[in-house]
């Protein structure tokens, strides 16, 4: 059987069920072989001079990026409000930015916390079963009652 493993074809080795048994090395070998086959089929231009020149210069045929020209639609004194919005959007933003003010919250954080405390309790009561609910109510009543303890009263003569 050991001899047979040398004779297994490459296609068979490439199948998924064979990949698990293979070592990492043989896997690498297979990958490299595949890559070599692909790169042989690709056509290259063997011109080293061209390659060295490729990275030299970037050619820019348009004036726009060179002179930092603005967007082509302009509107003055609010003649066309949509175009004014576009002008603000498309033109590069100025460096001086306004301070990002904190968002005005309608409800402050503390109020939210208080709300949540009571909310959780009421929702819990809503979904509790009847017996549990009775138990919850009794707890409240017991508190009131325990404050007024019955004390023995001496009978008056």
């Amino acid at each position, binding site marked *: 059987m050991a001899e047979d493993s040398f004779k297994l074809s490459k296609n068979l080795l490439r199948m998924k069920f064979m990949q698990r048994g293979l070592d990492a090395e043989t896997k690498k070998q297979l990958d490299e072989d595949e890559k070599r086959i692909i790169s042989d089929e690709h056509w290259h231009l063997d011109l080293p001079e061209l390659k060295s020149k490729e990275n030299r210069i970037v050619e820019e*045929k348009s*004036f726009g990026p*060179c*002179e*930092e*020209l603005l967007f*082509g639609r*302009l*509107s003055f004194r609010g003649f066309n409000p949509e175009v004014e919005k576009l002008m603000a959007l*498309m033109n590069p933003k100025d460096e001086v930015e306004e301070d990002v003010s904190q968002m005005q919250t309608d409800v402050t954080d503390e109020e939210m916390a208080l709300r949540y405390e009571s909310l959780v309790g009421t929702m819990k009561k809503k979904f509790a079963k009847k017996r549990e609910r009775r138990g919850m109510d009794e707890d409240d009543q017991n508190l009131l009652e325990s404050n007024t303890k019955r004390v023995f009263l001496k009978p008056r003569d």
Partner: protein
Amino acid sequence: MFSSLKEKIGEVLLPGDEFVFESEDTIFLTDNVKPERPVCGPGLRQSGNRLVVSKSGVLRHKPPHTFWMDSQQWRYVPAKAETVIGIVTSKSGDIFKVDVGGSEQASLSYLAFEGATKRNRPNVQVGDLVFAQFTVANKDMEPELVCIDGSGRANGMGVFGGGGLLLKVSLGLVRRLLAPQSDIRSDLEQLFPCELVVGMNGRIWVRASTIQQTLIISNLLQSCDTLTAPQRREQFRKLQKGGL
């Protein structure tokens, strides 16, 4: 090479002037210093291992490595990613043929509008004005226009028009109008409310609230080509005093 280029900033150069790549540049590649790639703008070309001037004009520079020739011309040559005003000349099948003032007409697909699908065709007629940008613009292929950006939004491009006037001006005036700090634009702002669409192909479309104001602005813009700055300011002042 940068040093020789930087020496000539602001000077008038003629086609045929060269800047040679010195061998010092290649040494930088072996160090871990990032090689600076010069960006050559319009008017400069790479030919072999030299940088050649192809248009006569003044050499301009923008830090860090951008150089270009500032020249004046009236004839527009399509360049990629430039926004232009085109006039629709014909509709054939799925594309519109648009005249942009170049050597041949550009094609604009009907799907290249915001929200256009095969069922929902854009409302574009022959003779409409479109504000579009080039996706393909080289000397070997027919130029192609689109009215949307990469993410499918119109961003102000598309059909416009109705009630305005289309002018042809020089390309230099268009660049002066759209420069970040522009005197002409600030002067125009003082006059009266108006709207302009400026195409890089030398076409400007003007609209103001009355026909008279539209005509005034169009005459002003066309004369700005030939007026010097003080003369232009004089003209604007006269108009403002005229109280139109």
